[in-house]
C-alpha cells in the first residue's frame, strides 16, 4: 500500500494542474471536482484510508443511498478517512490515460492506488466492466491473483455481492448483507492487522473470519464430472457457507445526519429517507423483496428526526420516502402528520417513489407532491399470470388507480409490465394490450362523466424482458431467447396503437446479459475480462452497450450464453450462489415456484407467516397474531 503520488506524467507538470487542464476539455467537469457542501475533509494521516468507488458516473452514484450512508459511516470513525470515486466518463477516462493521470479520489485528488482499501458497491450487473475499468485506471491489477503487497485491498458489496461468482477473480473480499456494522468490522480488522504489520495476504485471509465476508481465494469450487458445480469448499476442508449480515433494528442503526449536496443535478436530487427494508408481499420475480427480508421499519420518530436534520443541513426542498413498497409502511398516516408538523410552511415537497397500485392513497403526502405523472406496475397483463407471479394486484385496482388519476388531473400514467415471465402464454401478452385498452376506456369514461375540463391522462407502457434472479422462486427459470422476446414485442406493437399508449421496451440483448451475470458462475469472470479488454464499459448506458462485442467475448472464452440465460435449472442442481446463506430456505423458494406453476397465490405474510426461514429474526412474524404462524401454511 504505497503512498506515492500520481505517476510521473508525460509533461512532468504537477498532477493537480494537469487535472485542471483535463477538466477544461471534458463534458460535465463538475463530476470530478468534489468540494460539495457536507463532503468529508480528507484526513491525511488516518490509519485506514478508504476509496469508496461507485462503478458509474457521479450523477448516478451520488443518488445511491447505500453509498451515502457508508461514506459518512466510515469517515466518522476516528482513525479512518473515506473519499469518493466514480467512473470517469469515456472522454475523461481516455484523457486521463493520454495524460498519464491515474484514477484519483474526489476529495484529495490522491491516486486511488495509494489507499488502503478500495471499496466498490455493485448495485447492478451491468456495472461490472466499470469495476474493471476503474481498477485499471487506478493502476491496480484487475485480477486479485496479480496484486502485490503494494496494492490496496479491493472489497465489494451491494446487491450483486449476493451472487458474487462472476466477480470472484477481481475482488479480494466480498461483503454480503447490510453494511452499516459490517463495514466497521472490516475497518477494525484492517486497522488492527496493519498496525501489527501483517502482510496484505494475511489481512485478506483474516477478513474471511468476519461474518458476511466472502474471500474467494480461500473458497474453492468442486465440480461434478459433467462440469456442473458440486460444492463450495472452505480452506479448512468443510463446505463453505457465507451468512449474510442483517441489521435487526433500523432505529438503532447508523444513519448520517448530513448528505453531500452536489452541484450537478443528480438522478435523485433530494433528501432520501428509507422507511423500511424488506417487503412482505412476496412477488416471485422480485429479488430485492427476498434479499432484504425480514421487513424492518424505522419509527415515525426516527424518520422525522432524520428528515429535519437532513433538510436543515442540505437546504434541499424535496424529501423522498423510499422503500420497496412505500404504501405498506405501517403508519403512513402518522408519518404524514408528523412531517407536516415539522415542515409547516409547505416548502418541503414529498415524493413516494414506490406506491403500489393497490395501496390506499388515503391522506398520504402524495397530494402535496404536485405530481404530473404517476407510475403503476401491474407487471403482467392477465389475472392468471399476476397470480402466478404473486403480484397481488387486480384489474379493479388498476381501474381505481386510473380513475383516481383522472380525478386528480394527472397528466400522464406510466405502466410497467414484464414479458417472458414463467408460465406466460400468448394470451398473457395479448392481455397487456387489453389492459391498456381497458384503462384507456375507463379514463375516457370517467373524464366524460366528471366533465369540467377533465382530460384522460396520456398512457405509456414500458415492457421489460424478465430476468431470472438468484434467491427468488424463479431462480431456476429460463429466460426467453432474443427471438422470442422480439416476437412478443412485435405482437404488442401491433396490438397497441400509438394513440392508445406509447410503447417502450428494454433492449432484450441487455436483459440477456443481465441474466447471464445475475446467475453466473466463476466462468463468467473470463468473459467479463475479455469484454472489457475488447472495449466494453458503461454497458448500462444504451448508447455504449455493444452486444456484438459481448458475443465475441463469449466466443473467445468458449462459453455459450444460452447455457446461462435460456436454460431451465433443475431443482437439484447446485446453484453458483447456493453457498451464500441469506436465511431464506431453498425449500421455501422451491415451494413458491411450484405454487407459481399451478397459479396459486401466497398472501402477504403480514397476514400469517409463510415460514420462509427467517422466523427467528422476523418482527412481522411475531407481530402477526395468527395461530398458524410458525407452521407452513404455504405448503401444498
Amino acid at each position, binding site marked *: 500500500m504505497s503512498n506515492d503520488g500520481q505517476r510521473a506524467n508525460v509533461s512532468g507538470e504537477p498532477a493537480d494542474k494537469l487535472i485542471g487542464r483535463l477538466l477544461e476539455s471534458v463534458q460535465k467537469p*463538475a463530476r470530478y471536482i468534489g468540494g460539495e457542501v457536507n463532503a468529508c475533509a480528507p484526513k491525511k494521516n488516518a490509519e485506514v484510508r478508504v476509496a469508496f468507488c461507485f462503478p458509474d458516473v457521479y450523477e448516478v452514484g451520488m443518488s445511491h443511498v447505500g453509498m451515502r450512508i457508508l461514506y459518512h459511516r466510515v469517515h466518522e470513525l476516528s482513525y479512518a478517512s473515506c473519499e469518493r470515486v466514480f467512473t470517469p466518463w469515456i472522454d475523461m477516462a481516455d484523457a486521463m490515460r493520454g495524460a498519464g493521470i491515474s484514477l484519483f479520489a474526489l476529495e484529495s485528488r490522491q491516486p486511488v492506488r495509494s489507499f488502503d482499501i478500495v471499496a466498490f458497491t455493485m448495485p447492478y450487473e451491468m456495472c461490472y466492466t466499470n469495476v474493471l475499468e476503474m481498477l485499471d485506471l487506478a493502476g491496480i491489477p484487475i485480477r486479485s491473483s496479480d496484486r502485490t503487497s503494494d496494492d490496496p485491498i479491493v472489497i465489494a458489496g451491494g446487491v450483486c455481492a449476493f451472487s458474487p461468482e462472476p466477480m470472484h477473480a477481481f475482488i479480494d473480499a466480498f461483503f454480503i448483507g447490510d453494511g452499516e456494522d459490517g463495514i466497521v468490522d472490516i475497518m477494525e480488522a484492517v486497522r488492527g492487522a496493519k498496525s501489527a504489520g501483517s502482510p496484505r495476504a494475511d489481512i485478506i485471509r483474516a477478513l474471511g473470519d468476519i461474518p458476511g465476508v466472502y474471500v474467494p481465494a480461500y473458497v474453492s469450487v468442486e465440480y461434478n464430472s459433467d462440469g456442473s458445480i458440486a460444492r463450495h469448499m472452505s480452506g479448512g476442508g468443510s463446505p463453505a457457507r457465507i451468512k449474510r449480515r442483517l441489521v435487526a433494528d433500523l432505529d438503532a442503526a447508523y444513519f448520517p445526519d448530513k448528505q453531500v449536496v452536489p452541484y*450537478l443535478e443528480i438522478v435523485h436530487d433530494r433528501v432520501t429517507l428509507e422507511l423500511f427494508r424488506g417487503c412482505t408481499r412476496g412477488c416471485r420475480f422480485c429479488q430485492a423483496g427476498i434479499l432484504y427480508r425480514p421487513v424492518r421499519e424505522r419509527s415515525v420518530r426516527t424518520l422525522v428526526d432524520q428528515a429535519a436534520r437532513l433538510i436543515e*443541513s442540505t*437546504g*434541499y426542498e424535496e424529501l423522498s420516502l423510499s422503500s420497496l413498497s412505500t404504501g405498506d409502511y405501517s403508519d403512513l398516516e402518522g408519518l404524514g402528520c408528523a412531517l407536516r408538523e415539522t415542515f409547516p410552511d409547505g416548502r418541503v415537497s414529498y415524493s413516494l417513489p414506490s406506491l403500489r397500485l393497490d395501496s390506499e392513497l388515503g391522506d398520504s403526502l402524495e397530494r402535496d407532491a404536485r405530481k404530473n405523472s404517476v407510475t403503476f406496475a401491474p407487471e403482467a397483463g392477465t389475472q392468471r399470470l399476476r397470480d402466478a407471479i404473486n403480484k397481488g394486484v387486480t384489474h379493479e385496482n388498476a381501474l381505481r388507480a386510473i380513475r383516481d388519476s383522472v380525478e386528480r388531473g394527472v397528466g400522464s400514467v406510466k405502466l410497467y409490465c414484464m414479458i417472458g415471465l414463467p408460465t406466460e402464454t400468448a394470451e398473457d401478452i395479448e392481455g397487456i394490450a387489453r389492459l391498456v385498452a381497458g384503462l384507456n376506456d375507463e379514463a375516457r369514461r370517467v373524464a366524460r362523466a366528471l366533465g369540467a375540463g377533465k382530460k384522460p391522462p396520456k398512457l405509456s407502457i414500458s415492457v421489460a424482458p424478465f430476468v431470472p434472479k438468484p434467491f427468488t422462486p424463479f431462480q431456476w427459470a429460463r429466460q426467453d431467447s432474443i427471438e422470442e422476446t422480439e416476437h412478443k414485442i412485435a405482437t404488442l406493437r401491433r396490438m397497441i396503437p400509438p394513440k392508445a399508449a406509447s410503447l417502450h421496451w428494454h433492449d432484450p440483448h441487455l436483459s440477456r446479459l443481465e441474466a447471464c451475470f445475475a446467475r453466473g458462475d466463476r466462468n463468467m469472470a473470463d468473459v467479463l475480462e475479455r469484454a472489457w479488454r475488447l472495449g466494453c464499459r458503461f454497458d448500462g448506458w444504451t448508447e455504449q452497450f455493444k452486444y456484438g462485442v459481448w458475443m465475441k467475448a463469449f466466443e473467445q472464452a468458449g462459453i455459450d450464453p444460452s447455457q446461462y440465460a435460456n436454460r431451465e435449472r433443475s431443482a437439484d442442481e447446485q446453484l453458483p450462489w447456493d453457498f451464500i446463506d441469506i436465511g431464506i430456505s431453498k425449500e421455501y423458494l422451491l415451494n413458491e415456484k411450484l405454487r407459481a406453476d399451478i397459479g396459486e397465490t401466497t398472501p402477504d405474510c403480514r397476514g400469517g407467516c409463510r415460514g420462509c426461514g427467517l422466523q427467528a429474526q422476523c418482527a412481522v412474524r411475531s407481530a402477526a397474531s395468527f395461530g398458524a404462524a410458525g407452521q407452513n401454511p404455504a405448503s401444498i
Partner: protein
Amino acid sequence: MQYEAPLRSGRRGRTPRRYRGCVLVRAIIQFEKSEPLRFIGHLDLLRATQRALRRSGLPVAYSQGFNPHMLVSFASPLPVGQAGSAELADVTLRAECSEQECLAALKRALPPGLPAARVRLVDDNHPKLMAMLRTASYLIGFDSELDARPILDAAPSFMKRESIKAVRVTKSGETPCDIKPMLHELAAFPALNALRARVSFTQAQTLKPDLLIRALMEFSKAGVGQSPALSETPRYGVIRTGLFGERFGQPIPLIDC
C-alpha cells in the same frame, strides 16, 4: 434580528414592494467563484446558491404563484471553466437583517469554493445589476514566461493604436470588427506573467478575453516578425476580477453603483 435597511439608492416616489406584509430589500452579494468551482455551470451555481440561502436561515423572499421560487439572480453568468474573484449575486429579502448579519450568515452557509466577501443592502427599486453593467476586468495569467513575454511586451504599443481589427468567430460565421473601442484598459504584469484588461461588457458590445489574446498575438507576431519562440497556442487561465458600471465616464464597481 433587527430591521435596519439602509435604503440608500431608492428612486424617490415609488412605494416599495411588499411580501407577506414585509418591505422587500435586496442584498447584493459579492463572492468568489474559485478553484475548483470554476467548473460548475451557471444553473449549478444558481441551485447551490439557493440551497445555501435556505441553509443560511436568511429571510429570503419567494416569487408569487403556483411554483414559488427564491428571488435570486446574478449580474452576469461566467462561462464554465472561468473563475471569478468578485462575482455578484442579487437576492431579494424580506427586510429583517443588517449587512453584517447577512454576510455572516452567508459565510456560514456557502460552500467553501464560493466564499462571500461583502454584502450591500439596497432598496427593492434599485436598478437591476445587469442593466448597470458596462465593463468587466480580467486577469489573464500565462502558464509559461516564454509565451507571456512577447504578448506582454506588445501590450503598450497595442493600446496606443487607433483601431484594432479582429475577426469574431461565432456560430453564424466570422465577422470582422474593431475591438479597440471595447478595450478600456490594458496593463502588463511581467512578474506574474499576466495581463490585466478591462473591456466592454454590455448586451451590445462584449469583448471576450480569448479574442483579445488572439488579437494581441497577431499583433506581437507582426511586430517581431514570426518569433520562433512564440508557440501557436499559448496556455493561459482567465479570472474575471471585477464587474463595473459607470458614473461620469468613470468605472465604478457594480456593487457600489
